[in-house]
């Protein structure tokens, strides 16, 4: 059997899983692999141990106690002890584990998890949209312009979308930032702002538009025909957003929630979700990012 056939076999077996089970397995993968910045040792140790026990005793995957325990650990560490140190997705992990535990407490577990998945994704993007619409530095394009000239995660995009933004610009800007912080300088000049201004405005309006669309589609009653497009928009958002920003954990969480909200019959759609899950993982290894960087540079 070829590697491709083997992968297709694994993919179709995963797609055969119910939305509930697939969502639980994807979430457990996130707990075990924990991509992204390191968590404190006590959280890594305790949650990894739980995930390994669940792998050894798969019946525990559908036990609400497993998820309440994970929710408690994540909540205590990220939402309480390390409140101001944690990015958004760290908070979201505890809410999602809590939602899973609560959904597993109901008679209609799959239906409850689907509702929780839809509502949480809807509120996340509603809050993200509102924060953007009330932010002057976002609406002016300044936020993305700063990222494009100064944030190394965005440099590949700056070279691709910018009009003349070069590696030299990025190196000099990074050095200027370090210089300002190290020597307490009142201001430093950056370069390349003009070159990325158009790209920054495009990213500004693309992001707020797609996030607003996601908020609306996920919060609309699922019986409405237009709401069935939520998966398409979510996948487009995840694939276009998380690889460049490299917030893989957030991407995985959103996908696990989106999968929970799919219909039992939508096997092909779940297969695409699995593909997106793998795509952003492969992208996060840096190989594709480096290829883009090299292509833009030469």
């Amino acid at each position, binding site marked *: 059997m070829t590697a491709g056939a083997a992968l297709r076999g694994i993919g179709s077996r995963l797609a055969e899983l119910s939305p509930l089970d697939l969502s639980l397995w994807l979430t457990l993968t996130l707990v075990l692999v924990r991509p992204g910045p390191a968590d404190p040792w006590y959280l890594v140790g305790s949650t990894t141990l739980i995930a390994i026990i669940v792998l050894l005793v798969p019946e525990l995957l559908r036990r609400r106690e497993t998820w309440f325990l994970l929710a408690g650990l994540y909540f205590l560490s990220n939402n309480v002890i390390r409140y*101001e*140190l944690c990015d958004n997705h760290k908070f979201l992990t505890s809410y999602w584990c*809590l939602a899973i535990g609560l959904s597993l407490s109901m008679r209609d577990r799959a239906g409850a998890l689907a509702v929780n998945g839809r509502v949480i994704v809807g509120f996340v993007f509603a*809050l*993200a949209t509102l924060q953007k619409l009330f932010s002057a530095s*976002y609406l002016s394009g300044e936020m993305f312009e700063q990222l494009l000239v100064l944030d190394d995660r965005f440099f590949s995009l700056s070279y691709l979308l910018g009009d003349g933004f070069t590696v030299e610009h990025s190196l000099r800007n990074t050095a200027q*930032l370090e210089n300002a*912080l190290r020597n*307490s300088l009142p201001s430093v000049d950056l370069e390349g702002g003009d070159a990325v201004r158009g790209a920054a405005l495009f990213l500004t309006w693309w992001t707020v538009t797609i996030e607003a669309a996601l908020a609306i589609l996920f919060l609309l009653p699922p019986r409405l025909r237009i709401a069935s497009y939520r998966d398409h928009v979510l996948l487009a958002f995840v694939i276009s957003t998380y690889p460049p920003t490299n917030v893989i954990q957030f991407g995985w969480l959103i996908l696990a929630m989106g999968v929970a909200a799919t219909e039992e019959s939508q096997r092909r759609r779940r297969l695409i979700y699995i593909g997106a899950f793998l795509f952003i993982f492969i992208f996060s290894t840096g190989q594709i990012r480096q290829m883009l960087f090299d292509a833009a540079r030469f």
Partner: protein
Amino acid sequence: MHDDPLKRAICLGSASVLLVLTALLQIYRVEEQDLHPWKGGGFGMFAASPEQRALRIIPIDENRIGYITPMPSRYRGTTADRLLFRPAESRLREFARQLLTEDWLLIGIDQEPGKQYPVPRYDILDPSSSEPIRIVEIRLEVHVYRYDADSDELRATLLTEIAEKPEQPR
């Protein structure tokens, strides 16, 4: 058989309510307590400029001369990050009081090109080194660097500051 309405409401609403309440608290703390807009669970990442913050520690000696000194190595990491991302006055004062209990040492004088005066550098005293300098006050300043697209500049503005002196014996 269906679940009763109260159980249904709790199981379907708790996580979302928690999410929204935390986000509202984050928005309040960003506005009122200088919490970093990308932190605290409000989903404000990529909504406001990604502020670069700097904590300036200024020990002042008995001649009332103070100079900016780098964050002592033992406080780098979590302690420094907490002060930067949520620089509440009580925390800054507690940190300043901690710094006042340390023995400070003049470790060198930099003559930076283009600057008129030499810049003394302080650090916390190593037990094996010489006599410490008497520090009579510690000032802490949190500055935030924001990007100005009109001028292509990254500019520092003062976010908050405190000064703390050693407690006088009664």
